C-alpha cells in the first residue's frame, strides 16, 4: 500500500496523531495480563502482513515528521549523534544494511543503484537523490551513520564487540526514553544498564549479553520494551528533562485519555558484517490511552498490567505519581472478562466492553 504521510509535530502544539491503520498495527507490548522483565528475544524475520514486525526497518505514516523532529533535535544539540573514530566502518555497515533493506522492502519509496563502489540512493518521501562512493566518507554530507539515521525512524546504538562485551561507541539518539548517548558513550553493556532496577538481581543482563554476543549475520533478533509518556514527545531526553518532566504534572481526569501515551520500543539487533559490530535500532511508537481503548482487549489488559506492576518498575518508568489517576481512567475499560493470549488486538473475536 502507499503510505499517506502525516504532517504533524511532536512538540509545542503536539499535532501528532495515529490513523485507524496505525492504531490497529500499534505494537502493544503485553502478551498477558501482567508484566515482568524477561529476556524476551525472538528472531526478527518478518511478521504478520501490515504489522510493524513485517519489514526489517518499518516505515509508517509518521516518517517525514519524525525525520523533521530529529533534524531539529540535532540542530539544537549535535552531541545526540556521536561516533568514536574506530566506528566509521560500522557506520558504513549500517548505511548498507538500511539502504539494501529499505530498497528491497519498499521499492516504491526507496531505490539503491550500485555500480561497484559508486552508489546512487533515492529517498522519495524525503526528496533525496545522492550519488556517493561507498566507504569514502568525503563523498557524503555527513558521516555514513549520521547520513542514514537522519533518514530512518528510531534511535540507533552502534555497538563495538570486544573483550566479550558490547560497547556503546556510536549512535544517533533523539527519541529516547530518558537516557543519554552523550553520558553513555564508551560504556559497556553492564555500565549503561546499571540504572535498571530488579533486572540485575535476576541475572537478566548476563543472559541478554550472552544472547547478543552470539547474534550472527543473517539472523537478526528483536524484542519490545515500553514506558509511559505524557504528550506525544519523541525527545524525552535527560538533557531536556527540564522541558518535558514538568508536563507529567499537567494530567487531569479530563485530559488523561488524550495526553497520556503508552510508549513502546521495537528493539532490533543486527550483526554488522564488515566491522563485526552490532547495531541496536530502538524504534519508538506512541499511542494515546484513548486510542488504545478502542481495542477492548487492550483496555482490559492495560488496566491489569498498570495496576499490578511492582512499585520499583512504576517508579523507574516514571509514572508512579500518576498511577492512581491512570487506574481511575483505565478501570472504566476493564469489565473483568478474560483476555486472549498474545499481543494482537483480536478485534473481531474479543467481546466488546460489557459495561
Amino acid at each position, binding site marked *: 500500500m502507499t503510505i499517506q504521510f502525516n504532517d504533524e509535530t511532536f512538540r509545542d502544539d503536539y499535532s501528532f496523531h495515529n490513523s485507524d491503520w496505525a492504531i490497529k498495527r500499534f505494537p502493544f507490548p503485553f502478551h498477558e495480563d501482567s508484566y515482568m522483565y524477561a529476556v524476551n528475544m525472538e528472531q526478527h524475520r518478518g511478521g504478520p502482513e501490515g504489522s510493524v514486525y513485517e519489514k526489517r526497518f518499518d516505515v509508517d505514516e509518521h516518517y517525514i515528521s519524525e525525520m523533521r523532529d530529529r533534524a531539529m533535535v540535532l540542530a539544537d544539540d549535535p552531541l545526540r549523534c556521536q561516533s568514536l573514530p574506530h566506528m566509521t566502518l560500522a557506520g558504513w555497515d549500517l548505511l548498507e544494511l538500511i539502504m539494501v533493506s529499505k530498497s528491497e522492502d519498499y521499492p516504491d519509496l526507496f531505490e539503491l543503484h550500485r555500480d561497484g563502489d559508486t552508489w546512487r540512493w533515492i529517498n522519495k518521501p524525503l526528496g533525496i537523490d545522492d550519488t556517493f562512493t561507498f*566507504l569514502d566518507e568525503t563523498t557524503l554530507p555527513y558521516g555514513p551513520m549520521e547520513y542514514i539515521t537522519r533518514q530512518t525512524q528510531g534511535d540507533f546504538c552502534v555497538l563495538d564487540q570486544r573483550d566479550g562485551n558490547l560497547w556503546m561507541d556510536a549512535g544517533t539518539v533523539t527519541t529516547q526514553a530518558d537516557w543519554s548517548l552523550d553520558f553513555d558513550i564508551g560504556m559497556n553493556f553492564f555500565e549503561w544498564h546499571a540504572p535498571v532496577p530488579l533486572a540485575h538481581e535476576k541475572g537478566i543482563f548476563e543472559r541478554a549479553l550472552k*544472547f547478543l554476543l552470539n547474534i550472527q549475520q543473517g*539472523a537478526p533478533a528483536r524484542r519490545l520494551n515500553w514506558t509511559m509518556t505524557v504528550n506525544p514527545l519523541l525527545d524525552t531526553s535527560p538533557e531536556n528533562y527540564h522541558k518535558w518532566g514538568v508536563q507529567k504534572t499537567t494530567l487531569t481526569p479530563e485530559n488523561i485519555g488524550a495526553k497520556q501515551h503508552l510508549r513502546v520500543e521495537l528493539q532490533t539487533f543486527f550483526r554488522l558484517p*564488515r566491522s563485526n559490530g552490532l547495531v541496536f535500532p530502538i524504534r519508538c511508537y506512541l499511542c494515546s490511552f484513548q486510542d488504545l481503548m478502542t481495542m477492548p482487549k487492550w483496555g482490559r489488559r492495560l488496566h491489569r498490567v498498570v495496576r499490578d506492576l511492582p512499585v520499583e518498575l512504576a517508579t523507574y518508568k516514571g509514572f508512579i505519581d500518576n498511577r492512581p489517576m491512570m487506574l481511575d481512567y483505565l478501570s472504566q475499560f476493564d469489565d473483568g472478562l478474560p483476555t486472549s493470549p498474545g499481543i494482537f488486538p483480536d478485534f473481531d473475536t474479543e467481546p466488546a466492553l460489557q459495561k
Partner: protein
Amino acid sequence: MSAAPQKAKPGAEKIAVNVTAVVPLNDLVTRFEFQRSDGDLFPPFSGGAHTVVTMDDNGRHRLNPYSLMSDPADLTTYAISVRRDDEGRGGSLFMHRNVSVGDRMTITYPVNLFSLDLRARKHVFLAGGIGITPFMAMIAQLEHSNGNWELHYACRTPALGTYVDELRYKYPNKVHIYYDDQNQAIRLEDLLDGQPLGTNIYVCGPKGMIDWVHATASAAGWPDANVHSEEFLAPQPGEPFEVRLCKSDKTITVGEHESLLEAIERAGVEAPFLCRGGSCGQCETNVVSHDGTFVHRDHWLTEDQHASGEKIMPCVSRFAGKSLELDR
C-alpha cells in the same frame, strides 16, 4: 511476538555453494573456492571470520570450521585453505580426497570469533603454519583502509610455506618469515618491546605458540585485551562412553571417533552450536549428574566451571567413567 526466550538455533544460517576451484598449494594444504549456487553475491564479512562446511561423507555429516581467507571485499567468491591431517578424524582428508570442482556443498554464514580491534593503531600478526589463514583476510581488509600492520609467520620449511611467496611479493616490507628447518624463530620479546602504544597482537597457530605469546606478552606487561588468539580445536578421539540425555529421554553411546556433539546430533536431538571448536560457548550444556571424570578441552568454560562438574562443551570435551546425565 512470543514471550518465551528463544532457544538458540543449531548453527548459523546456511548458504548453498558450488566448488569453483581446488588449488593444491603444497604437500599438505589445498585451497577451495566457492560461489553461491543461486548466483547471488555472498554477504560481506570481516577478517578473522570462519565458516562451517558441511561434508556429506557417505551419509555421515561432517561439520568442520575453516577461516575465510579470501579478500572480504570480493563478494563473488569465498575461499578456505585446508591442511590435510592424516591423523585426524577425517574431515580434512575428505576435503582433500573427495571434493572437486563442480561439487555442491553447504557452508554457513560467516561467524567471527577473532575480529580485529578496530581501535588499534597497529596490528601485529603472529602466524604458525596453517594459522596464516585468518590473517590473509585481515591483511586484505586492512590494505583497503590503509591499516598499519605487520606479519610474523613461522613455517616448518620453505616447501610448506603456504602463501609465503604471495605475501612477500605483495608486501615485502611488512612480512617476516621464519623457517623452523633453518632454525629461525620469532624473537618475540624484542618484537613486543619495540611496539608503539595502541598496538594489538593476534596469534593463530598451534596451542604451544598461542600459550607462548600470551605468557610472553603478559610478562612484558601487555594488557590481556591487546592480545588476541584463535585456536580451533578438533575433537580428539577417545574411549567410547555412554550418555543419558534427560530432556529427550534417550541414551546414546559416543563412539571413539566422534564427538559428544556429533553423537547427540546423530540421535536426532537438536543441540545449538556455532564454532564446533570449543571457542564460541554456544553448545554449553548443563550436567545433571555424573560418576566419572570429565576430559574438558574447550576454551570457553572457566577453570572453576571445569572443576565444578556442572557444565560441559560437547563439541570438543569427553567423559570417562560410569555414568553421565546431561540436560539436553
